[in-house]
């Protein structure tokens, strides 16, 4: 009878631990998950400055410029509906170029410029992050 008792206790402890983990995950995900926006959606949703999001779109033609320090780059991301200025300090990925898809991770500053901590571009000519592909389909920029 005692062995059964111990087994039941262990099962309950395990259950409690897993429920606890799920609750912890849910509350942390609410704060830590970065929402994905296209420039048009970001404008429409009026994303608050400082909130971590991912912004995905095409790098606008002729928009890439560098600051005098040589390591800060400015460009605009567009989805055909709206265009957002982006600032990034670092080395951009190899496949980052004009008229090509990119995802910027970061947050808006007070002036409405998107400050990116990280830029993701598609990894090779054939590959496009599904997130970008999806949004491009919507706006008809990609077949």
């Amino acid at each position, binding site marked *: 009878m*005692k062995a059964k008792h*111990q087994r039941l206790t262990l099962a309950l402890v395990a259950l409690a631990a897993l429920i606890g983990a*799920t609750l912890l*995950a849910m509350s*942390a995900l609410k704060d830590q998950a970065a929402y994905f926006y296209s420039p048009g959606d970001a404008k429409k949703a009026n994303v608050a400055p400082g909130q971590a999001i991912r912004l995905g779109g095409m790098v606008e033609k002729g928009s890439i410029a560098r600051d005098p320090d040589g390591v800060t780059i400015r460009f605009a991301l567009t989805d055909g509906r709206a265009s957002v200025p982006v600032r990034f300090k670092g*080395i951009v990925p*190899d496949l980052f170029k004009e008229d090509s898809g990119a995802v910027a991770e970061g947050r808006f500053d007070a002036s409405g410029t998107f400050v990116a901590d990280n830029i993701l571009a598609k990894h090779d000519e054939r590959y496009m992050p599904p997130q970008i592909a999806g949004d491009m389909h919507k706006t008809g920029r990609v077949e």
Partner: protein
Amino acid sequence: MIAEAGLAALWLAFALAALQFVLVLLGMTGNRGELLGAVRPVAVVQGLFVCAAFALLIWLFLRSDMSVKLVAMNSHSAKPFIYKFAGAWGNHEGSMLLWVAVLALAGAGVALFERRLERPTLMATLGAQAFIALGFYAFLLFASNPFARLSPAAAEGQGLNPLLQDPGLAFHPPTLYFGYVGLSIAFSFAVGALITRDVGPAFARAMRPWVLIAWVFLTIGITAGSYWAYYELGWGGWWFWDPVENASLMPWLAATALLHSVTVLATRDGLRAWTVMLAVVAFSMSMVGTFLVRSGVLTSVHAFAVDPTRGSFILALLAIYIGGAMALYGLRVGTVKEGSQFDPVSREGALVANNLLLSVILCLVFLGTLYPLITEALGFKVSVGPPYFNLVTGPIALILVAIMGAGPLLKWRRDELKPLVNRLALPVLISAIALFALVAFAPRAHILPLLGLVVAAGVAAASVAPLWKRNLRRTPGFVWGMVIAHLGIAVSMVGMAAESSFTKETLVAARLGESETVGPFTVRFDKIEPIAGPNWTALEATLTVVRGDGKPFVLKPQARMFSSPPTETNEAAIATRIDGQLYTVLGKEDEQGRWQLRLWWKPWVTLIWLGGGMIALGGLLSLVGRVRRERRAHDRKAYA
């Protein structure tokens, strides 16, 4: 003809798996027991046929046979030999064939070498293994045929993704798969034991070596993959919480828990139902990982293609196998007897805590990895990255590691708190010293890495404590194994914490001849020149580096251009020193003729992978120690 022969070998293996399953089914349910005699040979031959199919695929790649679609899509005749060879699994179909080959080989290994398991359980196990194989053969043959022809043949192949053109490709996926898919044995053992109602210490002792082998491979695979990503991607990070990394971490967490609970079952006949559950969960996580990677549902470096049919196919397989095993578990768990009891303060108690915390971490990683899929189904897109994973798993991992330090110092069944406190006095003292030293010398370190270093220092001391007052030469291999693996965890943790708190970064646009400093190094940008490799050209910078008054040395980071497919990659140049690595990346040229240089000094970063290697070595020692001890016991019995 080679492609057709490969396809034929695959179909034959499929048929043999079906035969294996039917033999077990008929042999175990009816009175046709004689059929069971054929099961082992069939399992071995099935393994041979898949290996033949895989060898033929490699041969097609080596010959650059462009009439085979897979070769034309993923290879190129001008590619160096090693990438033609390893390129065979650098794509979806080839890697699935490797997956299935490992699955069949694992089954063949059990058929050949497993002698301790009761015969009915062994037969049920091989039947389960064949049943899993059937689904994945079907997936290969009907949804991912690697041998499909291309008509007309292509004149030239499209090449291999340059990010994969690295010696790591030859090593990382096979080791990872041996671990990942090797866990299928634990799954099949669990199913077999549930069918024959034979869950006990003998079953655990039979299962343990197989779990250990898979776990050692998985550990090596993850460690190697982490280092590969670190030097190849040029981002200077060693773990990105990429879904694919999580896909290998989740089975590892489950297998680590299983490894510990199976020891409780083998030694003390406790945690019966829980161990069986973990065996099912571990390989289920491997299959979930396969689904995440192969269906292309998640954005990732490893997502080669987005193909909804493949995704639903694997999803159906998942539902059948995981659902089936869980249903069987639900039906039979009531008949699994309670194991023997133990006090909360005991070795078993610490191992239960280990299992619970590992399960909690597994649960957190699992939810974080799948959350984007769930929200996408609900109509909004999110990405879950390091902020979430570090926040939720970090503190729990710290507690887990702290308990890991104390666990081996506890006696089985029942122990007292007071002697434990005495045994832990020295490790706690060492932790306290580490805390004071860190607060004094690195007051700006973040709390989590700081605690990591403090805990790691104490745990390192506690890990070697089981060797205290032992005759080291007569200490059994599995004790050495445990000590080295646990020490490896502490070593790895020091590396992680040091990397995150003490890394120095310099990002500049530099002219030729200019010098920059990063950490203790002075880096002079001497020249930049074009060079050519076998299938790429590159711009190569020459950096002359001096540390203090030391001897100067040269680092040459490159920006490479591949022509097929047209891609640029960064090849970081890394200098390894005893106390860390200097990591240099060459970026782009700006309008004024300056070049972007990114320099990192990462103190003690190498400890991360050294620790990973120690963990794997510990597993290996433990395996050898167990096998030798059992052989000796067996011999003794034979002579008595």
